[in-house]
C-alpha cells in the first residue's frame, strides 16, 4: 500500500513537473504569440522601407538610418520567430491581425492593414521618388510606421506573460521612440510635415 502510494505520488509529481512548464508557455491566442506574429509582419514592412532608404536615400543620414532600422528590425523578427518555435506555435495564425490587443480590431485600417503600415500605392510612389523628395516621403512613411507600431510594443511590454517578451517589447518601444525623434528632426530639416495619421 505504501509502495503503491509512493509510486503514484512520484508519477503524479513527475507528470505535473513535466506539464507545468508546458502549460506555462504562452498559448496560441496569447498576447505574447499575437505580439510576436503581428510585430513580425509590421517589422517586415519597416525592413522593406528601410532597405529602400539604404539604396535610394539622398542624404547619408537617411541611408544610415535605413541601414540601422533594417538590420535591427530584421534581427528582432528572428527573435520573435524563435519564441514561436520554442513555444511550439505556428509562426502564423488565421485570426485577424491585432486580435490580441484590446480594441485592436478597430485600430486596423479599412483594408485590414495594421496601424502605420503603408499602402502599396504609397510604396510604389516612394520607390519612384528621387533626391530630397525621396528622403522626405521616406521620413514621413517611416515616422507614421513607427507611431503605428509603438502602441503594440507598449501593450506587450506591460501585458505579455513572458518576462523575456515584456523586456524585448520595452526595448523596441524605447528604440523606436529614439527613431521617432530622429525622423521628426530630419523632416524639420527637409522642410516637410509629418503625415496626418
Amino acid at each position, binding site marked *: 500500500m505504501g509502495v503503491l502510494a509512493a509510486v503514484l505520488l512520484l508519477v*503524479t509529481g513527475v507528470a505535473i513537473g513535466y506539464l507545468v512548464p*508546458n502549460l506555462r508557455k504562452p498559448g496560441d491566442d496569447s498576447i505574447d504569440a499575437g505580439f510576436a506574429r503581428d510585430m513580425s509582419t509590421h517589422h517586415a514592412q519597416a525592413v522593406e522601407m528601410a532597405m529602400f532608404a539604404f539604396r535610394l536615400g539622398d542624404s547619408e543620414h537617411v541611408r544610415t538610418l535605413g541601414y540601422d532600422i533594417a538590420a535591427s528590425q530584421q534581427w528582432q523578427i528572428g527573435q520573435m520567430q524563435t519564441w514561436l518555435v520554442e513555444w511550439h506555435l505556428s509562426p*502564423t495564425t*488565421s485570426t485577424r491581425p491585432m486580435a490580441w490587443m484590446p480594441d485592436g480590431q478597430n485600430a486596423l485600417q479599412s*483594408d485590414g492593414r495594421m496601424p502605420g503600415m503603408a499602402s*502599396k500605392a504609397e510604396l510604389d510612389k516612394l*520607390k519612384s521618388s528621387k533626391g530630397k523628395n525621396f528622403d522626405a516621403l521616406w521620413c514621413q512613411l517611416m515616422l507614421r510606421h513607427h507611431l503605428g507600431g509603438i502602441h503594440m510594443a507598449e501593450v506587450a511590454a506591460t501585458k505579455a506573460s513572458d518576462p523575456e517578451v515584456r523586456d524585448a517589447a520595452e526595448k523596441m518601444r524605447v528604440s523606436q521612440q529614439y527613431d521617432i525623434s530622429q525622423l521628426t528632426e530630419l523632416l524639420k530639416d527637409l522642410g516637410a510635415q509629418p503625415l496626418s495619421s
Partner: protein
Amino acid sequence: MSMSTQHGGGNRKPSTKAVSGAKPKQGGDEDLEDASAVSDVDEIEDVVDETSSDETSESSDDEPKAPARPKAQPRKSAPARKTAPAGKRPGGSTRPVGKKIAPVKVKQGTSWGPIALFTTVGVLALGIIGFAGWQVYENGLSWQDRADRIEGIKDYRKTDKALVDQREHVWGPQTYNMKPPVAGNHNPNWQRCMGDVYTAPIATEHALHSLEHGAVWITYKPDLPADQVETLAKKVRGNDYMLMSPFADQDKAISMQAWGFQLKVDNASDPRIDEFVKALRQNASLEAGTPCSSGDVITETGSTPRDLGKDGGGTGMGN
C-alpha cells in the same frame, strides 16, 4: 525596560546558566533569592517579567521551572534529532522511538480513508498523464505532419524529391509541367509576397521564388465569381508571406501552393484553405528568414519574368 534589554543582550549566556543554577535555590529557600533568580531571566524575556510580578510563594516554585524546561528541552532535543550521538539525556532518545512506534499502530487500524485518497490520487495521476500524453502528441506534430493531415493535399516533398530539389536561379522564361508548379528552377527575383493580391497573372518564375522564401501562393481560375475572389483576397491582404493571382491553365477553381505542397479546392469557403495556410505559410520556407520584400521587388503583373539585374543591368529601382 530599555536598561534591561541593553543588559539582556550582553548577559544571555551567563543568564541561562543562572536559570539552570537557580532551580535548586528556588526549591530550597526564600522569595528574595527567587526574585534575584527571576531578575536574571527578566533580562532575557519580558514574559517572565510578568510572571514574576504575579508571583506568590507557592506558585514561584512552579513558574520559574516552567519557562526553564521548555527552554532547556528544545535546545537539548534539537541537536539530538540532528545527530544521534549528541543526545546526552536518555529521555531525549526514548521519545523519538516512541513516536516511530505510534504511526505503525495507526496503520494497523486501516480505514477506507487512505484507500479513497490513493484511488483519487491514482485517477488524477492517470488523467494528468493522459492529458500530458495528448499534449506531447499534438505539440510533437511537425508542421509537415499537420499539412499531411489535410484531406486531399499533395506532399511532393515525400513523393517527388527530384522535383522539390530543383531550385536553381535562372534567367528568362521556364517551362513547368505542373500548372501551377510547386517547385522548380526560378528567377533570381522574387515576387513581392507581403499579402499581395494581384488581379492579373504574374510570372511563375517569380512566384516560385516567393514559395522558396516561405510564401503561400493562392491561384484561381479567371472565371471564379467575384465574391469568391474577394473571400480569398481577405485571407491574403495584410498577411506576410501570402500572395494570390489568377492562373488560367489550372484544372480546379482554386489551387493552393507552398514549396512542395499543393491543394486544389472548388470553393473559396472550403475550410481546408485556412488549414493549408496555417500549416505551411512561412513553415514551408527553404531559406528561413528570407523576406517577401527586398530591394529588387517585383510588384508588376505579367506572365513574362523580369530579369532585373541580369548582366549587371538595371535593378528597377532608382535608375
